[in-house]
């Protein structure tokens, strides 16, 4: 059986309840800690493990990558395209290393598969672009984020 609501002339206006509710609103508005931040000026701290924009580690301007193709093999989104070449000292290196950033699902499998610790995901998360973006090798070779 349903509980009978209190009836009466005064209770019809719900004044007490409105005041109670407004007090909660005012308390949160004026005194509670804010959930949002002023984004470009303020930034959140992300974990070191955060998987953001890619970069290729390099030593003295030479990429660590040896174009072993393990990252395109393991990539579930098939967004990495590598063309391997031979340097003058017979070393294997990537002539072309492209990541289709819109296809990428930031799973971090490439990072895990890489035997040379070359491809990394930084903690940069501002990657919005106005056109479809393919990250070229030159772009990826700039050292960004957590190194």
């Amino acid at each position: 059986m349903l509980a009978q609501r209190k009836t009466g002339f005064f209770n019809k206006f719900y004044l007490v309840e409105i005041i109670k509710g407004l007090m909660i609103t005012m308390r949160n508005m004026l005194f509670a800690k804010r959930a949002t931040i002023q984004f470009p000026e303020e930034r959140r701290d992300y974990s070191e493990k955060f998987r953001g924009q890619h970069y290729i580690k390099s030593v003295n301007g030479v990429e660590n990558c040896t174009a072993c193709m393990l990252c395109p093999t393991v990539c579930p989104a098939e967004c990495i395209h590598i063309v391997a070449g031979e340097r003058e000292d017979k070393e294997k290196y990537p002539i072309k290393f492209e990541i289709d950033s819109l296809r990428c699902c930031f799973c971090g499998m490439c990072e895990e598969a890489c035997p040379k610790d070359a491809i990394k995901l930084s903690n940069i998360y501002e990657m919005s672009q106005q056109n479809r973006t393919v990250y070229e090798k030159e772009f990826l070779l700039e050292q960004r984020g957590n190194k």
Partner: protein
Amino acid sequence: MPKCTIDGKEVEFKPGENLITVAKRAGVEIPVFCYHPGLSVVAQCRMCYVEIEKMPKLQTACSTNAAEGMVVKTQSDPVVKGRAGTMEFLLLNHPLDCPICDKAGECDLQDNSFGHGSANMRHTEERRTYVDVDMGPVIEKNMNRCIHCTRCIRFGEEVAGIHEMVAIQRGNNIDITTIDGNPLQTEYAGNYADICPTGSLTLRDFRFRKRAWMLKKTSTICEGCSKGCNMEIQHEGNVIYRCVPRENLEINKYWMCDEGRMNYHYTQDEKRILNPRSGATFIGWEDAIQTLKDQINEKPLTVLVGSDLTQQELENILEYTKNYHKGSSVYHFGTEGVFTSAQDLPVDKILKMKSKTSNLNGAEKLGIKSVQEMKSASDVVLVFAGGRANVQSVTKKLEGKKLIGIGVYSLNEAESFSMVLPSLSFTEKDGTIFNHQGIEQKLKRAIQPKNTIKAISEILMLTANKKVKVGAN
């Protein structure tokens, strides 16, 4: 037949068969490095250890012939320990540069190490390194990866018939190299890369182009000569990366020549004509077919067919000429100097044949006469070629005539033709060919042809139609 027991399974065998062959029939895989069914047995790598009852020590399966009542164990504790020990020794000096090694993915050392070796390494000493010699244009050498199985040395001596690779020095300093460091001489050098169980000898042509596991494989026949070697085209994304031989004990055994191995290059050459070409300009298909119709116009024609076409294509051409150009004469051409299969003799004692086209035998089976018997030709001559037949040998003979080429032509060849209609190469079509022994074999389509080229049957059908209408491809 006598019987022996391998891992509890009774297997019949022919006397003289070694344990690896017998075990394979029982479904038991014994890991090997130096053993190759096409080469002699040396029992050098010590990987194929098995335990045989009543024998005090582990035996190498490759050098032990099966005997009546023999009880063999391939998975017992001493065997597993022995293999792990062998693997550890082989990997002492191996650089473990699998990420940049072209063999990775199809490497015996990788597979056996994964299957039978240990994940940890105990030795901490510096690894042995070598300076590599130049092995010529086919093979790239990396001696650091070598495990001294001597397959390459035995291949040269026993199959290629040239003693060019040798093992010099002894013990830890052993070096597998060519005599005096000369480049390889043999025309079968590509097989060195195939039989090498590590990445020590790799193909220069395939160097760093693709990883082995990414390639799709299509079993087909080499069209380099009338031998008809069985091969596998390995391709990815509609690009062919390499060709490797397939085992066929009746024809090519396990081998293949370099000419056949590199033959696929012309099919994806920049100079290959991929659009209908009239004079020196490229035209659309409808114009091309219309011009062709106007020029041949139901007259009797001289038709030349390359003996590199498949049986089905030859039949189509014969049927077309019989129905639409009554009184035409059809001749086959291919290699200069080889006009009949009687003239098609082996070049060496290994694989190569004189006829550089694959289907000379098949063309003769269809009753097509040789171009040698051609006395006179019509004003317009149709020349069908599959890319491998020597077109220049024919164009020299027919100077002054109007030549229309249908098939696979390069820009250089097309200069002497008034019109060229591009057609499929051997990598892009299915079909049947007869090799010099008369064995019927099937070509298989490996890659999708460009949409601007048409099969010979389609070109003939369009030409035979009254109204020229070329549908979208």
